[in-house]
């Protein structure tokens, strides 16, 4: 019996102690007519050797293509030490640190994480993770509505340069509490949000403005101007940021004159493998004054009864297990393991390393845009400075081009047609520090070939 340690004697002794004849008797409170038949739809058990072989074959089948995909999940180098440590049993197989004295390892790591994230975003307090970047935006919007006591409208302005999936997720989650997410147009020249487009909201009750930096197109927003506009007009600023980019980019807490009020985003670039989309971790930081409106777990430093320093979960009155229907969020299980991977990643890579990763991303992407932009029929869109993504307009159907690239084992980028039909045939490409000059040339060569063989629409 896999994973069950009972011997026949054990079972006998235990049943005798209970005073039951058979294990089956222990289920006698379940109405007989409800009892399940055999689960014929489930295959017979595989042993570890068999499942190992099956999984190895399936993993190998999906191959390892040369990928220029980004759009919210980014391929970065992860120090080998990160996953060697977080998969240690004491981290991997522990629960949420409810028993603080027996969970100091987890708790101290969270405290260290909170410190790093607060500093990285230039804000004062961090929670211990949310599910992912997209749902973190939903939570940030809900939090803004709670925290912004002067605003009644629950109207959230969301530039179209924000990751469109994030906006969808925010609607799906926060829409149920009647939050309204309103689109803001972008500048088709620069690929960014312009303050002029906000003019028409002046004088209205707007709860918050969302600003993503770098935005979904990879271009940089005028975060200072946008932030100041929001604050002048009585709106909160919710920053959606890539934490790896914050190695060089201005911290949300320093945006404009007063800084963003809430920062959130996807932690995946910090030590978390792509792995088909998850598990990743969402992060959120804010000012101390809003900490009681923040969702998610928070760890504080305190002392034990001998005065020795220790760590414990704190401000639990915000949470569902105490406050139930009045909690700041329903979140319970979060993404602890990934958050700890992020912590170790940041500790190993350090401030300079993170800055180097970020700058390398910028210059690799510049090289990529230069190489691809030189191909006939490929036109880089948007004039603004970029982080590590760029939009390319193609004079052939994007889907067909990408498909032919994939057949050569190159994942050429994301087809933007669904989300941005106004851009025509366009793709979003990305180059992180993992892409060498050789990789870029390989892509350029392949794209050059493919652009010749795909017919214009």
């Amino acid at each position: 019996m896999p994973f069950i340690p009972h011997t026949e004697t054990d079972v006998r002794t235990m049943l005798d102690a209970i005073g039951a004849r058979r294990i089956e008797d222990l289920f006698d409170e379940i109405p007989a007519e409800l009892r399940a038949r055999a689960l014929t739809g489930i295959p017979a058990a595989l042993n570890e050797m068999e499942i190992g072989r099956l999984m190895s074959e399936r993993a190998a089948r999906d191959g390892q293509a040369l990928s220029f995909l980004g759009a919210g999940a980014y391929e970065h180098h992860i120090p080998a030490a990160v996953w060697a440590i977080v998969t240690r049993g004491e981290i991997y197989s522990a629960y949420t640190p409810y028993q603080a004295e027996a969970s100091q390892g987890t708790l101290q790591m969270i405290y260290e994480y909170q410190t790093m994230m607060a500093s990285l975003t230039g804000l004062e307090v961090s929670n211990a993770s949310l599910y992912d970047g997209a749902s973190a935006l939903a939570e940030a919007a809900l939090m803004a509505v709670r925290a912004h006591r002067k605003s009644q409208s629950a109207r959230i302005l969301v530039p179209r340069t924000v990751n469109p999936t994030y906006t969808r997720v925010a609607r799906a989650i926060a829409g149920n509490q009647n939050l309204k997410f309103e689109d803001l147009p972008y500048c088709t020249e620069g690929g960014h949000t312009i303050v002029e487009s906000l003019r028409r909201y002046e004088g209205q009750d707007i709860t918050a403005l969302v600003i993503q930096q770098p935005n979904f197109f990879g271009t940089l927003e005028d975060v200072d101007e946008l932030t100041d506009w929001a604050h002048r007009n009585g709106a909160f600023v919710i920053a959606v940021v890539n934490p790896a980019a914050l190695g060089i980019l201005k911290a949300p807490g320093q945006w404009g004159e007063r800084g963003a009020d809430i920062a959130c985003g996807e932690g995946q670039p910090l030590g978390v493998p792509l792995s088909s989309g998850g598990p990743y971790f969402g992060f959120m930081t804010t000012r101390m004054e809003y900490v009681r409106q923040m969702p998610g777990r928070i760890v504080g430093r305190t002392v034990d009864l001998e005065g020795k320093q220790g760590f414990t979960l704190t401000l639990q009155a915000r949470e569902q297990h105490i406050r139930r229907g009045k909690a700041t969020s329903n979140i319970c299980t979060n993404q602890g393991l990934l958050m700890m991977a992020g912590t170790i990643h940041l500790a190993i890579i350090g401030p300079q390393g993170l800055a180097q990763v970020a700058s390398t991303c910028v210059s690799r992407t510049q090289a990529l845009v230069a190489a691809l932009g030189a191909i006939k029929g490929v036109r880089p869109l948007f004039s603004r400075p970029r982080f590590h993504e760029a939009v390319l307009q193609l004079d052939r159907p994007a889907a067909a081009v990408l498909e032919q690239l994939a057949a050569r084992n190159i994942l050429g980028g994301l087809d933007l047609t669904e989300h941005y039909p106004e851009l025509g045939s366009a793709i979003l490409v990305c180059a992180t520090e993992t892409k060498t000059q050789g990789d870029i040339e390989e892509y350029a060569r392949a794209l050059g070939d493919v652009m010749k063989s795909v017919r214009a629409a």
Partner: protein
Amino acid sequence: MTEKLIFEYGKPGRAATAQYPGASVPHGLPAKFLRAAPPLLPEVSELQAVRHFTRLSQLNFSIDTQFYPLGSCTMKYNPRACNQYAMLPGFLGRHPLGPETHGQGFLACMFELQEMLKEVTGMQGVSLTPMAGAQGEFAGVAMIRAYHRARGDLERTEIIVPDAAHGTNPATAAMCGCTVREIPSTPAGDVDLDALRATVGPRTAGIMLTNPSTLGVFERHIREVERIVHDAGGLLYYDGANLNAILGKVRPGDMGFDVIHMNLHKTFSTPHGGGGPGSGAVGVSQRLLPFMPIPLVGKEGERYRWLAERDVPQSIGRLSGFMGNAGVLLRAYIYMRMLGREGMPRVAEYATLNANYMMKRLTDAGFDAAYPGRRASHEFIITLKRQARTLNVTAMDFAKRLLDHGIHAPTTYFPLLVPECLLIEPTETEAKEDLDGFIDAMIAIQREAETAPEQLKSAPHTMPVRRLDDLRANKHLDLTFKPAA
């Protein structure tokens, strides 16, 4: 046994440069976009980081090192195979937006996982995207709302929740914009049917039930509950946190539930990772199929493909940036394949055997079961109300003292309606010797409570820290390290 903060190991200029991407390249970005000062990140060597985090890890209790009978959390053995095979380079390296042609191996696992979860729950459709139990609950209640709304039944915004419910239930209902109506449990631990009848009505969107409940007993009148709620036009939500108790024995779908979430990180043994990640896959009955959160995985001929907005136009939408916690789902898939059809009911059987054995032995030893006349499910409650009154020791004191015995404490003070409670869930992967060790420890602590209660009140004594001052933590918020200037 304490460990400095990682920042305290740092020195300006120290770094793990083998991790740097290469020669520093000028990025040429305008200054207005750039940060003024570097962030407060540790400046340590790779060895310092490895040593620090390895030492920190040793300060934790975990399944891999201790018995961890945390009620409602199903802390069972996380087979190492699940981790090893889910972390094969081919799975780790796959981009979530990669084309289906480059993901058939992964998609096959996801499709088969959906199918297995349907079978084991008796539901008609499964979506894997919710990232934890609470998000599964959210998806479920959102579907219930979408269902009523689609029928034009706009008044149904009340969610009924028993008083024993987990905090996420009412919190979720609120998050979905619903009103929570709480109903009491009977002294025997069942739902109070009269109260239920009095509560249902034209505003009833649905009821959220955990069965077996968090009281550690099976809801015997589930058929009646089902009839009352359905007759009133509401739907039934099943909180699957306790699925381990009934796996392969009785299926939520057969009990008449319309929607359920599963905690794959409990029943299907994916690791808890010190707080997460989890997966709260949801299963639905026929009538909720159109509303499932996306993406789903479909199969056409021999090819697997994503089903998204176009395929499920009435979906409540997306709940995550991509498709949920893929790596967790892979681990659950591996675990389920290793259990197989014959292994599923065994889980419930031995989890239940262990719980009933412990309950019997503890009550024989003089402890009070909260629901003494009942069978334990996979967990049960001991109440220390009597000890609190007569000896002035609390459930928390017992919990902390258990740590000194090398045993993680059970869940304390939940469910809220049982005073001074310990919710004890041994799981099926623990051996009788470990259960006996727990029982012996409880007996020893009880004796100590009678003879030397200060030992309990000042416990733990052998952990890296003594009992921590939670009040102070709450009052003097110290949430980040601030380096001396």
